[in-house]
């Protein structure tokens, strides 16, 4: 196909939107509808890979869509950090679609057309976030992402879903309007631009107190990064169907949050300014506290999805912490953690969904002995857990390695200790699940439930692919590492 990279960039945002229309139009024919989703996700992955090759050759790719107000443009460009996120999101969308087809059908969910349509809109806004060339564009798509995922969270329409949706929308919208927007307008007022620039937009004369306050506003305002105390929306979002929790609340939405934090740290403040701001230290400890507390809360959850959600809150803290360390190791570690955690956590959610569909179990205490009936699922769960903990042979090893290096370089020994302790906590709340599933097989329980089989084939294939992904990221991390290194080189 002879298409310029610029039009590919524009198309990667428009295509999922068109898919949403296509999905609604073909809503009455489920097979055709799923074909539209699958086809679009393949096409999107193709576009993103092409863009990736484009920037590997050093081409500048950018498009300007519209100037909303003087100086405030909706424009996009491709840079390594965005590329990394776009690759993950588009690849995992494809896998999740495969998974969702198996899950939604065997779970007999209602309103599947709305589900797939909102999903496509959400992916479109994720693409908008990844390629945003300025803070204003990013904010627009950030808000669309919140609104388009609301119907997904409240999908079941029950009272619990309504309550969950209320917390979800309430927290995400409030933080974004009260803090994020204020921070953006303040940046506009102080720096006179919202463009992402290597080295930041603030010049050397900027008042560090003001910039420090703006940084705090940003970190609190980006509710999607789920830094405590604004993390409650994430556990609340777990009322959604599992594919939503898997892709959106382990990858797309939360990663959009930490991605925005990274982007702002690197391209709005610049790591040199970030390192001298008075509020950075406070925010580092806040992220550290978020890591530890969320891990502790996760240990106490008996609902598997809730445990995974708190684990995500904790892992997101790693990424924010790495960004705020303001060193190259921290940035590289954070960017790689976006990828490795995405693969690990999506596998865990896929497993949770598979267990729900096949065995109708959502409580961890009921999962003893399940390993004999669902060996593939539980083995995948084990490997993905290793990735989250950060030990070989899974990709999480590398990102945690760089993050630890970052804390050492900046001599933040308390934070280093927090990272270590948190890894131990990860072991404590994740590994017992596959362990009990395989080794404490209670004969009375398993004989009564002998009919339990593995999840539907599409779901099983999907979770195997992401598990293999976890391992590949360990064995062959070079492309990821190079992409992460290139972020600071631009």
């Amino acid at each position: 196909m002879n298409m310029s990279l610029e039009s590919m960039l524009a198309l990667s945002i428009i295509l999922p939107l068109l898919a949403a229309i296509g999905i609604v139009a073909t809503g009455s024919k489920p097979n055709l509808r799923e074909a539209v989703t699958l086809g679009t996700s393949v096409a999107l992955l193709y576009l993103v890979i092409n863009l990736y090759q484009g920037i590997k050759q050093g081409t500048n790719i950018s498009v300007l869509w519209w100037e909303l107000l003087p100086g405030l443009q909706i424009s996009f460009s491709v840079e390594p950090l965005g590329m990394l996120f776009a690759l993950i999101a588009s690849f995992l969308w494809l896998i999740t679609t495969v998974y969702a087809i198996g899950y939604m059908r065997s779970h007999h969910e209602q309103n599947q057309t709305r589900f797939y349509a909102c999903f496509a809109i959400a992916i479109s806004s994720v693409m908008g976030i990844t390629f945003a060339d300025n803070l204003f564009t990013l904010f627009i798509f950030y808000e669309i992402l919140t609104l388009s995922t609301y119907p997904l969270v409240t999908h079941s329409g029950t009272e619990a879903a309504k309550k969950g949706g209320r917390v979800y929308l309430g927290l995400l919208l409030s933080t974004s309007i009260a803090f994020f927007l204020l921070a953006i307008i303040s940046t506009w007022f102080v720096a006179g631009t919202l463009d992402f620039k290597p080295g930041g937009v603030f010049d050397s004369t900027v008042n560090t107190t003001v910039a420090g306050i703006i940084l705090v506003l940003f970190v609190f305002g980006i509710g999607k990064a789920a830094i405590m105390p604004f993390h409650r929306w994430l556990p609340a979002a777990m009322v959604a169907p599992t594919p939503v929790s898997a892709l959106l609340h382990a990858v797309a939405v939360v990663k959009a949050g930490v991605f925005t934090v990274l982007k702002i740290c690197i391209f709005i403040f610049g790591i040199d300014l970030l390192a001298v701001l008075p509020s950075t230290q406070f925010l580092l400890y806040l992220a550290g506290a978020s890591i530890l507390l969320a891990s502790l809360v996760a240990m106490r959850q008996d609902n598997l999805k809730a445990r995974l959600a708190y684990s995500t809150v904790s892992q997101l803290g790693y990424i924010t912490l790495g960004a705020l360390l303001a060193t190259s190791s921290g940035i590289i570690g954070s960017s790689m953690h976006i990828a490795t955690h995405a693969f690990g956590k999506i596998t865990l959610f896929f497993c949770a969904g598979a267990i729900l569909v096949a065995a109708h179990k959502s409580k961890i205490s009921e999962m003893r002995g399940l390993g004999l009936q669902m060996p593939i699922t539980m083995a995948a769960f084990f490997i993905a857990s290793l990735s989250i903990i950060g030990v070989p042979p899974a990709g999480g090893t590398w990102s945690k390695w760089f993050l630890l290096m970052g804390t050492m370089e900046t001599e933040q020994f308390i934070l280093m200790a927090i990272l270590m302790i948190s890894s131990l906590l990860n072991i404590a709340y994740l590994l017992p699940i596959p362990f009990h599933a395989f080794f404490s097989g209670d004969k009375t329980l398993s004989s009564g439930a002998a009919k339990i089989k593995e999840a539907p084939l599409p779901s099983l294939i999907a979770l195997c692919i992401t598990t293999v992904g976890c391992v590949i990221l360990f064995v062959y991390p070079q492309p990821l590492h190079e992409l992460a290194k290139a972020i600071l080189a631009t």
Partner: protein
Amino acid sequence: MIAHLAILQVIVPLMAAPLCLLLTRPRLAWLFTLLASGLAFLTSCLLLQQVMTSGTIIYELGGWDAPWGIEYRIDQLNAFLLLIITAISTVVLFAAHTSIQDEIPADRHTIFYVLYLLSLAAMLGIVATGDAFNVFVFLEISSLSAYALIALGKDRRALWASYQYLIMGTIGATFILIGIGLMYQMTGTLNMDDLAKRLPEVAQTRTIFTAFAFVIVGICLKLALFPLHLWLPNAYAYAPSIVTAFFAATATKVAIYLLIRFTFSVFGLSFSFTHLPLQILFVVLGLAGIFVASTAAIYQTNIKHLFAYSSIAQIGYMIVGFSASTVTGLTATLLHVFNHALMKGALFLALGAVMYRIGSTQLSQFHGLGRQMPLTMAAIVIGGLSLIGVPLTVGFVSKWYLVLAVIENGWWPVAVLILLGSLLAVVYVWRIVEVAYFKPAPAGSETIKEAPASFLIPVWILVIANIYFGIDTRLSVQVAEAASRSLFGMSP
């Protein structure tokens, strides 16, 4: 023809009103009104274009020179307001014929259109004229027709609401008259331009201070600034749906115009803001209005009441922008005048459609409406998002300018409060969303059909305008900026 546009703007609907009385068939009267309003809309488009290219238009009525005769003076500000009023009036009228079928007895339909035309003509007159006493005359015409229009409401409480409005409105108009009288006594002129030239000589007198106070308080009553807003919620809630949609989008905007015109043009910036503590007073009242009215909106069970309180809150935003007394602040206010007209026009008209189908706008009646009237409810959701100020809607544009204006003045706490205020909008909008989409329709109730096209088309015109002007901001921002720059005496 072109030379007489300024007067045609007012005279066409004004003359159409008595003519309309001759048309006894409701459909004919409706089409005639629509035609008159459409003509007024065209006139205002031409006027705006003319003003933007060649500056202020001055039209002397009957050829009499200015201080003696009445002068119509159209600058960017007037033209902008004229455009808003006529555009909303025309779009809203599309739904009028269907909407009043159930709400107003058939024998009063013609009267309804006559009053509507009078009200439209009077609002246009207030905006177009350059004569202070003429303002009062049109103000009275608009008020009297408004009282009658509100009293036409189906609910018997409409009479009480109209009476409340009559008392408050009359006090307001009387105050304005007293103010104008005092000014006339001191300067011997009623022409606004002339007043602006002569007032500085006598500015430091107690009479002028008194006149200023009377005029400002009178106008604030009309624009329902907190705490002078008590007449508004009931008047909006019990009036016929079309009247609510029309007034919510335009009537308070005319009062905002008067406030700007009198403080900036007639009394002058330095008198209004330097000699008197107007700024701090208005910031406090504006913010109080935002919070009190938004909180009240959250607790309403009638959606018309809910959006009426929300209107009072939005007036708070306009007043905060106004009191920043900078070009950006005034631009924010004017933008919000334009944008809020689009939001509330869409919302109240959509409520009219709900009223038409289920005969009530109580929140408890909204159960299951998300499925039964998907297009109407989608319009309410988008209008609500615009009210919250979500990007790509008009609400975001005005909020952006308002916060920027406030930050320019260094009022950081005010900026925070404005944004917190919009969170209250999230709460009251989402109450409707939850009921309409998550509560199933009561069992055994008859199925409700989607609103007829005569509602859906004007509602969606306004909804699409909410999005269109949220993306293509050239028209609204350019005109608002030009208007506020000229009020500050800068070249546009």
